[in-house]
């Protein structure tokens, strides 16, 4: 019997969800494909058929989220009235929303990517085809509609945007503000900067983003310093060492 595309898709989603749940529960290292298969209600050969390794499963997850995000974007009736910045911002925010319920899982993955290097960041690039195509399309439409002039290095912009997206995720993973409002503001300000670059109003926006960081992160760490006299003393001593040889 031939399995239809949609049935295949359903099985894939089922496996991914079981995998995410198990990884949240046991950690990436200790979660086995065998147990994932069991939890998803599929046979061992089936899961290997879909994902030959846990790493492939991870990439499959990221691609799956891109697909879901695109599907959500396509449902926005007046999406064509959004500015380029609004479209990109919606793309990023939508992906983050999808990640929200799997946040524990994403935190583990981020840790493996950014800290333990269990996953090579370069490998993640293999998953971004759909994302990059989408950004390319948004960019082209915006140029065609004369919202922005054709920027230099246009062909590189979508992959730069992917890098930015990975950075947003890294920020979000560490964000402990209520409802991740800092990430929302970070995206808002940084895309404001990107918009300004494309419309050439760089300096104002750069300072706004800089200020956001200063306000949100620098000030709080400075305050911590001022309450931790010991640290401050140590710092002073070190500074003294430097100044006086």
């Amino acid at each position, binding site marked *: 019997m031939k399995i239809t595309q949609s049935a295949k898709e359903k099985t894939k989603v089922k496996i991914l969800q079981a995998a995410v749940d198990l990884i949240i529960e046991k950690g990436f290292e200790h979660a086995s494909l065998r147990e994932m298969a069991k939890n998803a209600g599929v046979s061992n050969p089936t899961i290997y058929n879909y994902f030959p390794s846990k790493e492939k499963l991870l990439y499959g997850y990221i691609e799956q989220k891109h697909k879901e995000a695109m599907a959500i974007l396509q*449902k*926005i*009736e*007046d999406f064509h*009235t*959004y*500015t380029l*910045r*609004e*479209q*990109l*911002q*919606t793309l990023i*925010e939508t992906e983050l*929303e999808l990640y929200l319920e799997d946040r524990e899982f994403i935190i583990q993955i981020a840790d493996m990517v950014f800290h333990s290097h269990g996953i090579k960041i370069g490998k993640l690039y293999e998953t971004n085809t759909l994302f990059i195509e989408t950004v390319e399309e948004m960019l082209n439409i915006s140029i065609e509609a004369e919202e922005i002039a054709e920027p230099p290095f246009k062909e590189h912009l979508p992959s730069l945007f992917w890098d930015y997206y990975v950075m947003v995720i890294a920020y979000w993973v560490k964000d402990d*503000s*209520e*409802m991740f*409002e*800092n990430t*929302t*503001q970070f995206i*808002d*300000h940084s895309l404001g900067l990107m918009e300004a670059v494309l419309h050439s109003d760089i300096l*104002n926006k750069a*300072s*706004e983003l*800089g*200020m*956001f960081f*200063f*306000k*949100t992160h620098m*000030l709080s760490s400075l305050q911590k310093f001022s309450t931790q006299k010991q640290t401050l003393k140590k710092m002073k001593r070190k500074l003294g060492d430097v100044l006086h040889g």
Partner: protein
Amino acid sequence: MDKLPTSKLSRGKVVGKALLKIGAKKSKRYLTNGDKKETHEEIADIIFDALGELKGVSVKIAQQVALGMPFLSPVYLEKIGRSFNAIPSINKALIRKIIKTELGVYPQDAFEHFSMEAFAAASLGQVHKATKNHTPLAVKVQYPGIKKSIESDMSLIHFGLKRFAKGQNVDHIISEIEERLYEEIDYTLEAENCDFFRKNLNNERIIIPEVFHTLSTEKVLTTSLLVGLDFEAYLASNPAQTSKNAYAQLIFDSFFDSLYNLKRIHADPNPGNFLFMDDAKLGLIDFGCIKRVEGVFLKQYLNLHISLLEGENDTQSVEQYFELGMIEEDTKENMLYFYQEVIKPLDTLYKEPLVHDHYDFKANSDFSKRGFKMIFEVQQKQFHSVHKLNEQFLFLNRTLLGYYALFEKMEATIDTRKVKALMREYQ
């Protein structure tokens, strides 16, 4: 569009700039031994210039400071009025995000129709038109992260004001302002207040929007949409004198009505909170700044007003103010002196429109100017410190003064008989 200083550093710069200016003024005074009053007035201007430049959250802070601190000069009102609409804009992506986070679904799924373009600015957010079940709605959406902004801005303002409030204790005023602001950013409280006034303010000419609770959260507030002219548009439409009088009367009566009957007042006399609707109806919107008044205080306040209107002697007034906690215990002479120097001028002012059956704000078009000037002069008297003022008293009178400023702009005449009858009824 003006650049909105979005960070503490640039806010800090603005405040810092103001502090530098004040420093210069102060040394000027010491050097020239010039007119002290004038210098303080200038300082007040500078503080407000700085607050005005900050916009956004700070506009609200400036409004609250203005309400809570009587030592600031008259010019502030107009300045704040002008900068009120300057708040960060929320783009389509952000609107979607906020609605999804708050209501759990995207705007297109939460409403039949949702306009992604805002039609009005609101306190720390913006308002969008929408419909659901064919009912036109107003959806107020708050910019994310406002709470954090308040924290950092208030710490700066505290820093600034403390040093330039002539050594007076401003802590309690700062915390009162902070509390008001936190209340104002919690839309669930506003929803409650809106429900309360809608249910209890029985006046068929006052229209209060209906809250849709299933579509409201701390950061999103959905109410029925009221249609009418705002204050400026109403005045620009050249309304008849009778219409202006009727509206002023309505605002005046309902203030005292809610004060005595509901023990809660709409403590934000911003003209943007009124909508002038068809059939001489008045729409009341924005219930973010509501002041509850305690029964004991209200009784004392009422007795005081009535005896002032009846022309009681100064000694009796001193006793009443002592009860209100506005005069500290001291020798009889000192208490009387304090009353006559500080409180009596204010009393004269507050009772002025109430003394006769009618008060014509057109004929007394300098009322609020005189009022703010007097408050300011009183504040200059060094023996008077801020902590002696009863906060509830202050809020009530500032609100009332704010309303009088509106009546003045409307050139309206009010009839005070109904309000006075109400006072006697509650005595």
